[in-house]
């Protein structure tokens, strides 16, 4: 019991002040989380439905849209493709293979949210030979420390309210993809599964490819997903080409020109929302843990303080008793 009660008392006070701060931060995060989660869940149905529509549509349309990129199976092309066009597309495809992948990394601006940013940056840094487009201060800092190339950095608002907030980013990646600077664009974000569980995900944004992997593409794949999940058999049946053909009005190019850029924007928006909901949940959890830990620490310190105090009293009594005994003798 070498530590004096005075020092322990000071330590208790400092811990209790920290606890007050973490508690306040927890409450703030909880409020922000509720809002972010509500927004995320509300737009999930739309994003999911739009994605499904594009998947079904691109399966059945021969029209080649630049944003669609290569289809995996060349043999499905209709033979009516003129030689010029296929020559051209082949050369552009060849040019594309040498090009880079852009990865959009969505993180938070502030720390104190557990492993949230580390997990996102870790996921992003797993990819090799890519250029990063960062959104959020934390991912930018981590990626720069690792010496990776950052092509662009976008400021992230604390609360993203409208798709228009993201239009500069969408325009950059879409232009980059169309003029051949990037052959692929992916996004790394944190999928909000519940307030306790979040999962970092990589999603290919461009070109659109109907992927086998159901996590890829569908943002917000979770038990709470509002779109009913199809069994693999049903999915195959739905996506099988030639099962039925769509009548497209006014024309395939008009619809796709309108729909695809909007889908890119929407997917990006949804991933930002998911990340935001995850960030606030992660921070709330981290702050709750900190508050709990501070409580435990205070209890321990109080015990220590009482012991030290009691030891002091005992010692004083012993001294008095000893002094009295010495006088009597």
């Amino acid at each position, binding site marked *: 019991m070498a530590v004096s009660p005075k020092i322990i008392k000071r330590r208790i006070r400092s811990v209790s002040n920290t606890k007050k701060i973490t508690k306040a931060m927890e409450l703030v995060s909880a409020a922000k989380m509720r809002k972010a989660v509500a927004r995320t869940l*509300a*737009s999930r*149905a*739309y994003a999911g*439905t*739009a994605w499904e*529509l594009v998947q*079904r*549509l691109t399966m059945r349309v021969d029209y080649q849209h630049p944003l669609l990129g290569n289809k995996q199976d060349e043999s499905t092309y209709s033979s009516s493709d003129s030689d010029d066009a296929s020559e051209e597309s082949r050369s552009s495809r060849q040019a594309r293979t040498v090009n880079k992948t852009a990865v959009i990394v969505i993180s938070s601006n502030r720390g104190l949210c557990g492993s949230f940013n580390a997990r996102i940056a870790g996921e992003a840094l797993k990819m090799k030979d890519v250029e990063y487009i960062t959104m959020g201060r934390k991912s930018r800092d981590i990626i720069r420390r690792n010496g990776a190339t950052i092509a662009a950095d976008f400021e992230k608002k604390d609360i993203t309210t409208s*798709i228009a907030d993201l239009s500069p980013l969408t325009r950059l990646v879409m232009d980059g993809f169309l003029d051949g600077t990037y052959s692929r664009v992916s996004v790394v974000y944190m999928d909000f599964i519940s307030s306790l569980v979040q999962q970092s995900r990589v999603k290919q944004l461009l070109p659109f490819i109907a992927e086998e992997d159901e996590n890829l593409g569908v943002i917000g794949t979770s038990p709470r997903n*509002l779109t009913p999940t199809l069994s693999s058999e049903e999915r195959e049946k739905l996506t099988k080409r030639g099962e*039925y*053909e*769509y*009548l*497209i*009005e*006014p024309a395939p190019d*008009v*619809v796709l020109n*309108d*729909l695809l850029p909007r889908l890119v924007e*929407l997917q990006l928006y949804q991933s930002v929302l998911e990340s935001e909901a995850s960030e606030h949940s992660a921070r709330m959890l981290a702050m709750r843990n900190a508050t709990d830990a501070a409580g435990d620490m205070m209890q321990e310190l109080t015990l220590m303080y009482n012991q030290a105090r009691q030891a002091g009293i005992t010692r004083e009594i012993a001294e008095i008793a000893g002094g009295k005994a010495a006088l009597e003798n």
Partner: protein
Amino acid sequence: MLHFKIVSPERIVFEDDVDQVTIPTKDGEITVLPNHLPLVAALQAGELLIKTGAARIPMAISGGFVEVQPKSQVIVLADTAEKVEEIDLERAEAARQRAQMLAKDKITEASEYAALAAKMEKELVRLKIARKYRRDHRVPTPVQG
């Protein structure tokens, strides 16, 4: 029966089995009945009308897409969608006036102009539909969906 679903970025506006739906597409108004052939169409701002039995549910939408799948599944992806009773007439009027004011200012960018024109159109449609169904009170209370 037709399974109809309309979603906007904010929410699922309506999802239920209905008899028929009239949808404003860019090529004109279409009415979808059961067993319609598969179709994908771009929409324009206008009135979307759902009929189930005697009930009619009018909505104001402002662009989007419609997909008719086989087996009478209809999905509308609307940029915005509001049921008539949700439209606040005064606020719609105020929004239209604001849009008009903005249009008077100088507009430099083409995209800005397009956005504003779209906004104008949307507000006009909202107003038109709200007025139309408020005036005649034939609209039965909509089926909760």
